């Protein structure tokens, strides 16, 4: 891990994004355990370096598409914690007026084109966002986040090929957290690097350490330059870990069945992206300890405010069922 080629303000920015995601997700986990949130939630803890590093290399105009595990992507792209939390509570003050929920948060104003609960469902749409950038001569690039599991859907293969043949500015970011639900990625494909699949579509396939936010930033910058320069799509595979459950509440649901070993969990803990980042910036005197503490306090405070606002916010009126229909 190193940051030599990365300006200090970007380092700080990346750190802030990672921490903001972590504190938000920790709180969501607590709220879920307390039975305060309806539906399912899939937390991004352990994978923060991917979204933070990638989004720090994007402009506000660039777009992203996300998955069922989408909170981190929204936050990394600059999403508003209050509107997010309100959406998780199903409140009218949420991003989608309570109609979307955890798996369907979107913020079109910041280029966050939506989280998608169907595995692989976002991939073709990201190609379309790249298509419109190319069509209008825009500098915009389209980033698609998806999991290792999604790489086995037909949509993955069709999307990579389509983006490649049309030379579109799309960056496919595969978050290989080693599992799709309870199935190890290695049981669902006979290759270790999903990035190898890029060759089949004639595009670059890069393997990244997804726990290293700087590396994610660096590789994304390369892919962005290529895309903006008319070079077409790139597949980046981020090797990462999901620290917690597939969906919150998993332990009770699995009734004692285990699918990951203690050693594996301990290894993931040791490679925790926030821990790595914190250690790096502290040990190299990049950001002073006092500053890190203030930052943490500010973020923790803003998450708490988001929760209070969400709780106090109004539930949707039943009449709103028939709003936002055909324009």
């Amino acid at each position, binding site marked *: 891990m190193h940051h030599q080629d990365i300006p200090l303000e970007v380092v700080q920015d990346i750190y802030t994004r990672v921490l903001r995601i972590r504190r938000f997700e920790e709180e969501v986990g607590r709220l879920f355990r307390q039975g305060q949130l309806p539906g399912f939630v899939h937390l991004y803890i352990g994978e923060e370096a991917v979204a933070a590093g990638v989004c720090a290399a994007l402009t506000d105009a660039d777009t992203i598409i996300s998955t069922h595990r989408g909170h981190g992507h929204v936050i990394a792209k600059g999403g508003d914690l209050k509107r997010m939390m309100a959406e998780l509570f199903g409140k009218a003050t949420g991003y989608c007026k309570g109609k979307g*929920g955890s798996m369907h948060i979107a913020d079109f104003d910041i280029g966050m084109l939506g989280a998608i609960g169907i595995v692989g469902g976002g991939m073709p749409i990201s190609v379309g966002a790249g298509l419109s950038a190319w069509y209008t001569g825009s500098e915009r690039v389209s980033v698609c986040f998806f999991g290792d599991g999604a790489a086995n859907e037909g949509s993955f293969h069709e999307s990579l090929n389509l983006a490649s043949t049309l030379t579109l500015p799309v960056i496919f970011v595969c978050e290989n957290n080693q599992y799709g639900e309870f199935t190890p990625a290695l049981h*669902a494909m006979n290759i270790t690097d999903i990035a190898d699949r890029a060759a089949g579509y004639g595009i670059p396939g890069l393997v990244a350490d997804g726990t290293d936010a700087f590396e994610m930033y660096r590789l994304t910058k390369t892919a962005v330059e290529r895309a903006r320069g008319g070079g077409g799509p790139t597949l980046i595979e981020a090797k990462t870990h999901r620290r917690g459950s597939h969906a919150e509440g998993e332990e009770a649901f699995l009734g004692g069945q285990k699918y990951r070993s203690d050693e594996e969990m301990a290894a993931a803990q040791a490679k925790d992206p926030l821990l790595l980042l914190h250690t790096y910036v502290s040990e190299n005197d990049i950001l002073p300890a006092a500053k890190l503490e203030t930052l943490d306090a500010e973020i923790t405070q803003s998450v708490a405010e988001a929760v209070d606002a969400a709780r106090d916010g109004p539930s*949707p009126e039943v009449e709103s069922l*028939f709003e936002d229909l055909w324009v």
Partner: protein
Amino acid sequence: MPRKTYVAAIQEALAEEMRRDDRVFLIGEDVRIGVFPSTRGLHAEFGDKRVIDTPISELAVAGAGIGAAVTGLRPIVDLMFGTFLYLAFDQIANQAGAMRYMYGGQTKVPLVFMVQNGAGSSAGHHHSQAVHQFFMNMPQIKVILPSSPYDGKGLLKSAIRDDNPVIFLHSLSLGGKRGEVPSDEYLVPIGVADVKRSGSDVTISAVGPTVYTALEAAEELATEGLEAEVIDLRSLSPWDKQTVLESVAKTGRFVAVDESFPTCSAASEWAATVAEEAFADLKAPVQRVTNADVPMPFSPVLEKAVLPSAADVVAAARKTLT
């Protein structure tokens, strides 16, 4: 009789049929660990070959089921949520249902697609839709949506023994529901309805979770002195027209209740059939009670408002009586 959950009843049906016929096997995502507990424990008994975990590739898995079926096996393809059937649409609509007919009767497709159907857990649009109506629209696909553990087990066993493609939908909201399930072997035939409550004033047909909505409405109507006959269709394709028409001949009034998008819903089909074939018996226009015509919203208040409620059914029944 032992009381079991719906999920346990389904698990029993799968195990019994797999014991009975070694051509029967289960394939899908995380069926070994059991994303839905209905497949849990089967891997321990039947091993890797007969309980197959797959990558997340619905189209290929559905198609592989079809290929295995036309070459002599009897697959049960578990695609988890009903909405994931959309990813396998081509294989179901273009292939599974048509192959026998299209190839002039040379083959048969003994295959069960098993999914969770409908809303009730505030999971948002991608995990909360009822999808049965789409498959009713396809010729030569059987569709079943049982409401009780007893019917779940008996109908699933029939589906596995059926020589045609069957979509077996179990309702997300009924998974924990308990009911009597005999220890002795039994089957529930596909295409036969069950009259859950008899009455002479109005016929209410329902399926899956709306059976309970209809029964609740019937209790409410009874307090006003109106006796509703509640019919659980259980099978949607083919469906038991006879039982519905006979009931309407008696009551002269018909309310169709169905958790799905209203246009071309199961309720649409029942209502059209009653209007067509029992017009002379009808004393009032038929009524449909379905979901609101919108995508499934996440917020519990909105989700509840979308779904057919007992109050909606009572109101529809009153409309036929005034």
